[in-house]
């Protein structure tokens, strides 16, 4: 289907059918993007882990980062990190098989550069928190290692709860949502 746009004349053709009104085409595009936005929410609900599992995953992330930050400040943090990594890995496995039993197989690796960028940002943030936590603990500010790691755990929980589809497969859907927000701002200006 080829949609020819002629802004100077304000007329469009949609395949064989001519659509004279520019507004009609715009409304149709807005409606489709609204559907995409609704589907994005639907997909997020499909991929959302149950509260208990999300708590296990976020708490594991918190303890992994905390233990990594404080590893140089006590020998017990080494095995705490090992146990929390095991808990995190087990939680991810439960999440994967739970989704599969419900009829959803998740994307294991990002298909687009944007997905890798999201992973890189989260990894860099985690590494930054570990480095900062270690540095602050050296200066006696232990509490900050807990605060920073806890903050990361909270972010992890919120994202998994609300934006799991976006987190797992950003890209086309993120573009759709972006357009959806453009639509709402356009509607406000009207």
């Amino acid at each position: 289907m080829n949609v020819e746009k002629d802004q100077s004349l304000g007329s469009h053709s949609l395949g064989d059918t001519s659509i004279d009104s520019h507004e009609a085409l715009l409304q149709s595009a807005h409606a489709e993007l609204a559907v995409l936005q609704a589907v994005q929410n639907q997909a997020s609900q499909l991929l959302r882990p149950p509260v208990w599992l999300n708590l296990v995953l976020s708490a594991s992330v918190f303890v992994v980062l905390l233990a990594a930050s404080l590893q140089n400040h006590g020998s017990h943090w080494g095995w705490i990190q090992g146990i929390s990594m095991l808990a995190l890995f087990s939680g991810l496995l439960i999440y994967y098989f739970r989704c599969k039993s419900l009829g959803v197989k998740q994307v294991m690796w990002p298909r687009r550069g944007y997905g890798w960028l999201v992973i890189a940002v989260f990894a860099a943030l985690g590494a930054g928190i570990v480095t900062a936590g270690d540095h602050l603990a050296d200066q006696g500010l232990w509490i900050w290692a807990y605060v920073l790691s806890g903050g990361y755990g909270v972010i992890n929980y919120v994202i998994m709860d609300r934006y799991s589809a976006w987190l797992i497969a950003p890209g086309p859907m993120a573009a759709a949502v972006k357009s959806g927000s453009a639509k709402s701002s356009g509607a406000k200006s009207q």
Partner: protein
Amino acid sequence: MSGVELDPVIHAPNRLQICALLVVVSELEFRLLKAQLGVSDSVLSKQIKALEEASYIDVIKRTEHGRQRTWLALNRSGRAAFQKHVQALRQIIEPGAQALNQSEG
């Protein structure tokens, strides 16, 4: 004058929803997709057939625990077509919004 390419296969409302759900996952089971769309088996089968004929999705039948389950996956060309369709929609909206703002200004 600029041409905006909308995909006639994806343009249909049910097929748009199917593609939008499949693009965020690796595979989705038929019965779950049916429940999400709120359509009958026959309607969904018809839409899937259209997408399959366009080589946008792969239909995989697997026997798991003695029960056959049908999984659907958007393939590479399907993902590319969906992405192109979304971009076309954005192209329609963005110049439109700009024109609207200019006329208001």
